[in-house]
């Protein structure tokens, strides 16, 4: 049975259906969001998630994530 997880993503509450086999991972979330993993960085509850651990890092309801990228700046 897929389970629903409610996350705070970049300050906004969003709900996602987790995969049948287990918890939604950071990698799974980025795929759902259609983001290019090579161009973003992710912070989970104020801790950096290294790219190498996206697949193994599971998410649970109540988690807060920041997903950032580079933009123009001075």
């Amino acid at each position, binding site marked *: 049975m897929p389970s629903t997880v409610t996350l705070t993503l970049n300050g906004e509450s969003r709900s996602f259906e987790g995969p049948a086999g287990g918890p939604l991972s950071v990698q799974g979330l980025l795929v759902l969001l259609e983001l290019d993993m090579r161009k973003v*960085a992710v*912070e989970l509850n104020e801790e950096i998630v290294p790219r190498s651990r996206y697949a193994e890092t599971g998410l649970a309801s109540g988690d807060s994530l*920041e*997903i950032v990228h580079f933009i*123009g700046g*001075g």
Partner: protein
Amino acid sequence: MDGAVAGDDTWTVAGRTFRSRLIVGTGRYKDLEETAAAIEASGAEIVTVAVRRVNLSDPKAPMLQDYVDPKKITYLPNTAGCFTAREAVRTLRLAREAGGWNLVKLEVLGPAPLLYPDMPGTFEAAKELIADGFEVMVYCADDPLAAVRLQEMGCVAIMPLGAPIGSGLGLQNPAMLTMIKENVTVPFVVDAGIGTASDAAIAMELGCDAVLLNSAIAHAKDPVVMAKAMKHAVQAGRLAHLAGRMPRRMGADPSSPLAGLIR
């Protein structure tokens, strides 16, 4: 000073060697096409970039990397908009993860309208970042004691302001910049305050290793042409510095010989 000498004139920060002494920001352009064209025209090899939340409602929106290739141009992530050491450190840790490199620009700012460097916050963040393996190019006040202390802490470049960020007022402190530079051995870069090409040339004539600017190009009526002007101004100022200017004198000293005048 001929072209060959100028061509060999490089500078090195944190073990990375660059030919261009102009570092440009990538903010405040009309669009990413204009950003790319201006950077190209400037000849810059380092660009500053900001770290911000991804717009999750438009994940396929074009990104800076699609227009400015980080494999060809060194991205220098900044902490613009950070008003505390904690925000700055958190931002740069994310930047390191997004880009995979340690060379960063630290700025911890005081409140608007001056956005003046907050030096206690800057020291705090620099200490934490250096301990965490970052190579920190630091935006700072034009304070000779702060500059030396930041260098002793291990910052890899000292970058005092010439005037407030985005003010375009030009160097308000050339004498102080010169005096600070005397005691700095790591690269010394004027960051902020440049308004037009002559300002950049003056910074280089003072002996700065490089100039960092954004608004002077992005807010020019024609940013691409101004980018080109900045490229030449930085080169001209650098050559003038290497050449060594003539002494100033209070009074005339005619260039034409006085001998042989008709009577």
